[in-house]
């Protein structure tokens, strides 16, 4: 029999329903795996006592026939989600010691539906990064290695802890957040499935804000169906988030396995970027072939403003971040560094608490919003954003149901490989994902092949607003054809 922690969420749910094992046994299997995998540095906090207590209650509810949709399923939570009574720091020293007296809406819905919390998962500081190397807890190590090489690789970012933990079987599934690719890029790097839903689909209440018009929560999982299970519980209207949308949440599992016959899939020519590797080009063609074989129609499309997306993002996101992070001033929470007066106290506190990438983005954001530069930078970027969204609107108006692209320009890179270079080098990681956040669209990353050195590669499917179901159907067609991409060498537990 497969070790309990290696079951998919779908299989674990079935096993619990059939009384093949208990939620406590399942949880214990994950706690043991977590203990064994500390070398990966995926968790910032482990909550074993809370997990076992939640699992025991889940077993009672299963026994009494009151099981919720996630009853007894062990989940990891990205450190961007406030969790009542459990340290939440966004992996920043400025929030050191912060213990929220409240629970984020998304995680409260997971616990409402019976899920078990295993702990908090590392991310880039304030979700700013593409490798999880900027975490104040140190870099997360991917469970994947290149063939014949022991160099530690990044799991991607910013949700690198979530991606690594799901891929290494340290949790059944995990929550993530995505402002420019922070779910989809790490999912692609780790052979997992990750979806960023439409902006407004999941409540942002209780998620530490980075760039409010771009941030959205979503799941990481080991199969498409698992991601559908988790998203259903995460999504939904919340009066506490004024941008959350009051629409019915469908049962996404119904869409998994539904026919994709006749769906029109757009291939945007602008995503064939300069210097793209041959293996990424081939993966993209194979992905189109898989969908064609499943009955979809492949059409060429154009999204002319694609090349402006990254520069637009690096104005809009830092501007919003500089405003959102103004609250960390050493007064209400976190660490305080004394100064000669209140301004000096603010400046010293923030200088000591924020890491280099966060400072860079706060500085850029402050600059582009400052008097005399607002129109040239921020207002201009918001206008370009209108054009980027219009590109997608036009394509969807022509009858395209979804757009297929690579998820990342390369497979996972080594720790230290890009972080030492110019900051812009790291920003290029998000070239295929960032347009989606600017336009508020849903997109899923699904593993579809291997690189020459044996690392997983992901494809991205971008959908119409609130058409996550179409993405689940198409992603399942890819999974049916390409299979799943489980880690097979547990080198960290030897």
């Amino acid at each position, binding site marked *: 029999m497969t070790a309990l922690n290696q079951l998919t969420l779908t299989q674990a749910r079935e096993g619990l329903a059939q009384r093949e094992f208990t939620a406590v046994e399942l949880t214990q299997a994950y706690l043991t795996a977590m203990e064994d995998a500390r070398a990966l540095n995926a968790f910032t906090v482990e909550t074993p006592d809370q997990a076992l207590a939640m699992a025991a209650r889940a077993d009672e509810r299963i026994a009494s026939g009151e099981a919720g949709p996630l009853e007894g399923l062990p989940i990891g939570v990205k450190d961007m989600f406030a969790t009542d009574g459990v340290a939440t720091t966004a992996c920043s020293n400025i929030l050191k010691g912060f213990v929220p007296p409240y629970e984020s809406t998304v995680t409260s819905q997971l616990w409402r539906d019976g899920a078990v919390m295993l702990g908090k998962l590392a991310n880039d500081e304030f979700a700013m990064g593409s490798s999880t190397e900027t975490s104040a807890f140190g870099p997360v190590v991917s469970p994947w290695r290149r063939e014949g090489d022991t160099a530690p690789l990044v799991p991607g970012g910013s949700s690198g802890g979530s991606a690594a933990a799901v891929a290494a079987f340290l949790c059944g599934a995990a929550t993530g957040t995505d402002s420019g690719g922070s779910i989809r890029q790490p999912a692609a790097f780790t052979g997992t499935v990750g979806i960023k839903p439409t*902006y407004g689909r999941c409540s942002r209440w209780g998620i530490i804000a980075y760039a409010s018009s771009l941030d959205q929560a979503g799941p990481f999982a080991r199969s498409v169906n698992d991601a559908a299970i988790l998203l259903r519980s995460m999504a939904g209207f919340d009066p506490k988030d004024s941008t959350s949308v009051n629409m019915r949440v469908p049962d996404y599992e119904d869409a998994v396995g539904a026919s994709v016959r006749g769906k029109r899939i757009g291939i945007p020519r602008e995503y064939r970027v300069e210097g793209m590797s041959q293996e990424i080009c081939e993966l993209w063609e194979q992905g189109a072939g898989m969908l064609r074989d499943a009955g979809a129609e492949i059409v060429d499309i154009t999204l002319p*403003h694609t090349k402006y997306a990254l520069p637009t993002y690096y104005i809009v996101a830092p501007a919003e971040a*500089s405003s959102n992070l103004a609250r960390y001033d050493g007064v209400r929470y976190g660490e305080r560094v004394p100064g000669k*007066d209140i301004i000096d106290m603010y*400046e010293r506190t923030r200088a000591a608490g924020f890491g280099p990438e966060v400072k860079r983005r706060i500085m850029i954001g*402050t600059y582009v919003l400052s008097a005399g530069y607002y129109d040239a930078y921020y207002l201009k970027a918001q206008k370009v954003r209108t054009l980027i969204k219009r590109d997608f609107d036009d394509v969807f108006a022509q009858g395209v149901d979804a757009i297929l692209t690579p998820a990342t320009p390369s497979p996972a890179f080594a720790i230290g490989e890009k972080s030492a270079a110019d900051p812009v080098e790291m920003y290029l990681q998000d070239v295929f994902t960032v347009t989606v956040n600017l336009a508020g669209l849903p997109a899923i990353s699904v593993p579809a092949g291997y690189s020459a050195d044996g690392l997983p590669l992901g494809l991205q499917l971008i959908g119409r607003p609130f058409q996550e179901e179409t993405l689940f159907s198409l992603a399942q067609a890819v999974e049916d054809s390409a299979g799943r991409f489980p880690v097979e060498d547990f080198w960290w537990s030897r």
Partner: protein
Amino acid sequence: MSVDLGTVRRVAHLARLAVSEDELPALQGELNAILAFVEQLSAIDVSSIEPMTSVVPMSLPLREDVVSDGHYPDKILANAPEAEGGFFTVPKVVE
């Protein structure tokens, strides 16, 4: 557009980040690399385009203007680095 050392110093102060004189040149280089990157936007004419103000077309919901939450000062103050008598405390401000 590129920034000089004086601008970096001024922006750091606006952002309430203490930056030492030795750190300024490196920060200047990084900021100029990012500004050079976003400079690509100057190639595009947006004079007739409206800026995006809402990601999903919807109007801002309104609620009754009543107190709907609160009355737990202890919880609010629990994470404060310094608090006294039900208040956050800060260094003395005299203007």
